[in-house]
């Protein structure tokens, strides 16, 4: 099913890594649609596959592994997975930009910041060197990298964590992409600057009609910024819902547990909250619900059968006992 309105449509997408004679499944039948101008959040446990999904959209995985993919990722109706190198290169950094989780490692340590950003601009937009400099100057100032000259002439290793992060944001936004994939873009920023960057991104995406896929562990930030949120657990999208209803009307036990831990308060014993247990190992090929071993609602059916959802558009949840949880509320 292809909805024409969708800018990006991820359909039944599975990803596995062929690794030392073993096959390690990483993502399992993901369905996610992003409309033009829509902001979608992606949250989930560390290691659940969020960055892998982000990288898979632009086919940015390292070359030393062979990847097995199934399903499709359609951008404006075209399958990105089947595109030739030339096609994907004209989309990367131009129509779809990505800000990586670890900004330092995604910049070339040998070149100054100005040169790296100018190259992107000259390559994709064909602007002149001096125009590129002006554009970079203005963007840096908007992102509070002042005085801009200082940061333009710096090497990546001379920047602090948060400065690096903002340089990456500048590099991603400067080409005016249709879709921005933002992987943990505010994790190294203080509360004030992070709020301002998000406001800037907010007005930018409204003005330019840019869609955003935002990955973050900061549930408050995501919730404020996005329209819809997907919850990833052990490589599966287990719930998708409108942010407005969070956290009261999230029905998946994992989502509920995650939000329960979110406030970083200590209990009577002085301990922080967390979810007991581990996620299943990817190579185990479990039959049932991936959250089974840690779930307080689980019954036998959860172990035997993978929960599914009738629709995977709008709000949906994959849990055998979602109705029961809903009724308890």
């Amino acid at each position, binding site marked *: 099913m292809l909805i024409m309105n969708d800018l990006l449509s991820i359909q039944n997408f599975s990803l596995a890594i062929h*690794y030392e004679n073993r096959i390690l499944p990483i993502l399992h039948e993901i369905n996610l649609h992003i409309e033009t101008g829509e902001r979608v959040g992606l*949250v*989930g*446990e*560390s*290691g659940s*596959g*969020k*960055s*892998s999904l982000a990288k898979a959209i632009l086919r940015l995985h*390292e070359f030393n592994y062979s990847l097995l993919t199934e399903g499709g990722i359609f951008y404006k109706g075209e399958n990105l997975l089947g595109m030739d190198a030339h096609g994907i290169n004209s989309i990367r950094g131009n129509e779809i930009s990505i800000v990586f*989780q*670890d900004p*330092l*490692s995604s910049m070339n340590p040998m070149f100054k910041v100005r040169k790296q950003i100018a190259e992107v601009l000259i390559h994709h937009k064909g602007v002149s060197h001096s125009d590129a400099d002006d554009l970079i100057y203005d963007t840096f*100032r*908007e992102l*509070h990298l*002042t*005085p801009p*000259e*200082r940061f333009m*002439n*710096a090497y990546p*290793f*001379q*920047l*602090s*964590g*948060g*400065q690096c*992060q903002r340089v990456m944001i500048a590099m991603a936004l400067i080409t005016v992409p249709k879709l921005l994939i933002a992987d*943990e873009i505010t*994790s*190294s*920023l*203080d*509360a*004030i*600057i*992070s709020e301002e960057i998000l406001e800037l991104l907010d007005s930018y995406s409204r003005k330019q009609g840019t869609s955003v896929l935002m990955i973050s*562990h*900061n*549930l408050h930030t995501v919730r404020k910024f996005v329209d819809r949120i997907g919850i990833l657990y052990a490589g599966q999208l287990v719930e998708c819902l409108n942010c407005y209803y969070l956290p009261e009307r999230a029905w998946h036990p994992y989502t509920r*547990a*995650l*939000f329960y*831990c979110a*406030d*970083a*308060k*200590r209990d009577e014993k*002085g*301990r*922080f*909250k*967390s*979810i007991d247990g*581990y996620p299943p*190992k990817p190579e185990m090929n479990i039959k049932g619900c991936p959250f089974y071993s840690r779930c307080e609602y689980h019954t036998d059916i959860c172990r035997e059968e993978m929960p599914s959802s009738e629709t995977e558009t709008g709000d949906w949840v994959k849990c055998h006992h979602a109705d029961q949880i809903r009724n308890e509320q």
Partner: protein
Amino acid sequence: MLLQTENLTKTYLRVSPITRKVRRVHAVKDINFSIPHNCIYGLIGETGHGKSTFGRLALALETPTSGKVFFDGIELTALSKNKLRKLRPKFQMVFQSPDSALNPKQRISEIIGYPLRFQMGYSRRQVNWAVREMLEKVQLDIRYAESYPRELSGGQKQRVEIARALSLGPKFLVADEPASSLDASIRGRILNLLLKLKEEHSLTILFIGHNLEVIESICDTISVIYKGSIIETIAADKIRFESRHPYTRALFGHFRLKTLNPEPSSAAKRKINAVEEETTGCRFSWQCPFVGDRCWKDFPELTKFNAGEVRCHFFEEIW
């Protein structure tokens, strides 16, 4: 006091390629700091204002431009390389960017194991044990021991970095945003691990971070840094409502700061540059809603008040 610094200063020089003008970046300026034994000390502040640099200086990972660092009474800044290396296992740093801290050519078991083997003289069996135990403590499956860093997610690498630093059993740990890439549940467990080490092994931690809720709940005392100097030090449970420095109060959302005007006049621009470079006045003055004439001229001293220490001329009026 476990760690003390005396007028610690670090200035980076940058030469502009065109004008050959030298620009000074005062990353850390005259910090006098003391961290008592067995506590978790928080360090917060605007991004790029010198937190990580201070952390590196405190552990003698970088040479200061001037000033001294004392660890348990020993002056680190005066030690020879050899002596320093012997002391290293006692103080460790969890780096902010695990990607650049972890050697991409080593397996996780080697990253954690080599220091144990070569610095602590563990046997092969002991190393295997320790690696296994550490991975479990940071919520990583044992199968990751044979992986390379690039095969791990951002948060998994961050946990390896924590495991590496803790495996040597340090007495003092600088944790530079140790939980920034972790989800709420795993973050909870890592923080519990740090609390437990503090209680059972009297570990002292300098906790650098941006997540104010986390800092508030885990730390005993918090210092706020702004443009390289400490502007306020206050008990963690008081910081939200009883802090006095305008920057701290803005950080906790009591009011909004004057931010950079998108089209600053040339006068304003000059002012900003002046602040970036050298200024005799308060370095916060260009952003401060309470700014008065004194602020532009005199650098405020760190002054005691009922809940802590603050560096502001008008702290008595800010409430």
